[in-house]
């Protein structure tokens, strides 16, 4: 076995590889097709139900193919609930939080990566410690602080506490440290300020890290439920996730409209997923975050 010529073995391996590539059918399809079906059924069934009539949703066995496609279910949702308002609220909160994180975490991440300032190590450890605390431990006092600031039942309650986070600082600091420091030093010698170096040299080189942070923050903010549940009371200030829950309560039996609302609530994250799939995967693979 071991005294066979290496060349022949390497040739053999190459041959096997080629054969595998040629025969694209593999028994693994028999495993993967059922998995894919199981993963897609809930989504497809939601889409199908969202264009059914109310009558069709109340039949058993279920109506697998609607007799005619009820696109107006989607506009009915916008008419029956302040869905547009919730969509707008969620967009305002998410976009502001993403921008805040990109800005504040860039500034802090750069300071922690490159500038030796008094107390840097201690502060950095403190910041990282907050990553390990479960949200349930801090949510009651955070609620009290946000109430003291007069932000309860405003979008500010959802924005202000989340404008910067340990996750973003850590992610960007790690990335900044991989950049060649010579470029920055050269610019400093030419008289550029720290801020100038950050914005003109470091950030333009940090596209992938910034995209990863933006995408993960977007996902997390858009999908958040517990914190809005605690801090928002008026339906006009609801986010989509809150709005969806009342939809279920108030219109318990209008399944087709609930599904249409659900589809619409997912469109932005799904779009982002398909456009920026690379950054989603990277963000999850390197940091392990899901809302």
């Amino acid at each position, binding site marked *: 076995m071991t005294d066979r010529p290496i060349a022949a*073995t390497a040739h053999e391996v190459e041959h096997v590889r080629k054969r595998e590539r040629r025969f694209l059918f593999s028994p693994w399809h028999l495993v993967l097709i059922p*998995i894919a079906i199981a993963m897609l059924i809930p989504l497809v069934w939601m889409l199908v139900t969202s264009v059914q009539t109310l009558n069709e949703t109340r039949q058993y066995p279920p109506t697998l193919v609607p007799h005619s496609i009820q696109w107006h279910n989607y506009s009915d949702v916008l008419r029956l609930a302040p869905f547009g308002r919730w969509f707008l609220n969620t967009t305002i909160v998410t976009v502001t939080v993403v921008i805040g994180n990109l800005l504040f975490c860039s500034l802090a991440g750069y300071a922690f990566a490159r500038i030796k300032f008094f107390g840097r190590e201690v502060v950095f450890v403190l910041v990282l*410690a907050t990553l390990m605390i479960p949200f*349930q*431990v801090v949510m009651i006092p955070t609620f*009290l602080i946000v109430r003291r600031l007069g932000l309860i039942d405003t979008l500010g309650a959802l924005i202000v506490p989340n404008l910067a986070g340990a996750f973003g600082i850590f992610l960007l600091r790690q990335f900044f440290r991989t950049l060649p420091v010579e470029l920055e030093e050269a610019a400093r010698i030419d008289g550029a300020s720290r801020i100038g170096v950050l914005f003109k040299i470091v950030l333009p080189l940090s596209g992938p890290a910034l995209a990863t942070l933006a995408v993960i923050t977007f*996902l997390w903010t858009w999908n958040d439920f517990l914190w809005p549940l605690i801090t928002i009371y008026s339906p006009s200030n609801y986010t989509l996730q809150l709005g969806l829950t009342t939809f279920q309560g108030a219109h318990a039996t209008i399944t087709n409209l609930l599904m249409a609302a659900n589809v619409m*609530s997912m469109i932005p994250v799904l779009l982002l997923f398909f456009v920026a*799939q690379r950054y989603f*995967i990277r963000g999850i693979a390197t940091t392990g975050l899901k809302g």
Partner: protein
Amino acid sequence: MQARKVLQSDHVTGWALAFPAVFLIVIFGIVPIIWSAILSFQRTNLIAPPVWVGLENYRALPKDPLFKTSVAHSIVYTVLFVPVSVAGGLFTAVALNRKIRGVRFYRTAVFVPVVVSTIATAIMFLWLFDPNFGLANWLLGKVGLGPYGFFDSVNGALYSIVGMTVWGWIGFDVIIYLAALQGIPQELVEAAEIDGAGKWGLFRSVTVPLLGPATLFLVVWSTINALQLFDEVYFLTHGGPGTATYVVVFYLYNLAFSQGIAGYAAAMAYVLFAAILALTVVQLLIGKRTVYYAS
């Protein structure tokens, strides 16, 4: 001249750049940790002035039957969710880690639920698992099973939540495992093949040990998240039917924000934190003795 020099010094610039983020993290991250510890020694409804009660909240916990029920449900949920999602993720990732037709489609199908919110997932499964009109009962009926009550059934509600959350999380495990699988050196696989290792032997003796760090990470991370289950329970069952799906965080939320028993809830949050921390340390210690790090 002197003032200019101080302004340009690294201490000032460093602090100026770090300050906005650090300030926010101190106010909304560090202060609440300490405040929460103080709250756990008080009786407070978040409105009237708090009363200092020492360890009373912590002493009351083991005598609270609903707390014990919630802990039991959280443990059952975690013990089911973690192995099922991690093993399922490993199996799916191994299946996806090959160049076959349509593999991009399969991957997308598995990844998409990762970006779907907990509430949107719950809404889909509420309909899928509807006892009267749901597709799940109809499909199960085709193979002679059911009908089931799913979220409406005392015996099935918690298991239905396990099934639903595995659907939502498995793509996360697959992403981590695929990244780890692609990091396995091809020479190692070839060497094992040359030494006559069969497919199963290769998987057991080469692939699984090399995936150790990914498995450890997923077990730790899934456990932390499983013990914090809330959104799905709040939306789907509100802890019911009866108390069949009462879990720790749902009980804690109810105490603090519906019943105004915030000091007790804070004590419960700290106990949860201690449990999570202890479990994580134990898992990491076991991992240290069993996980093989290639580099």
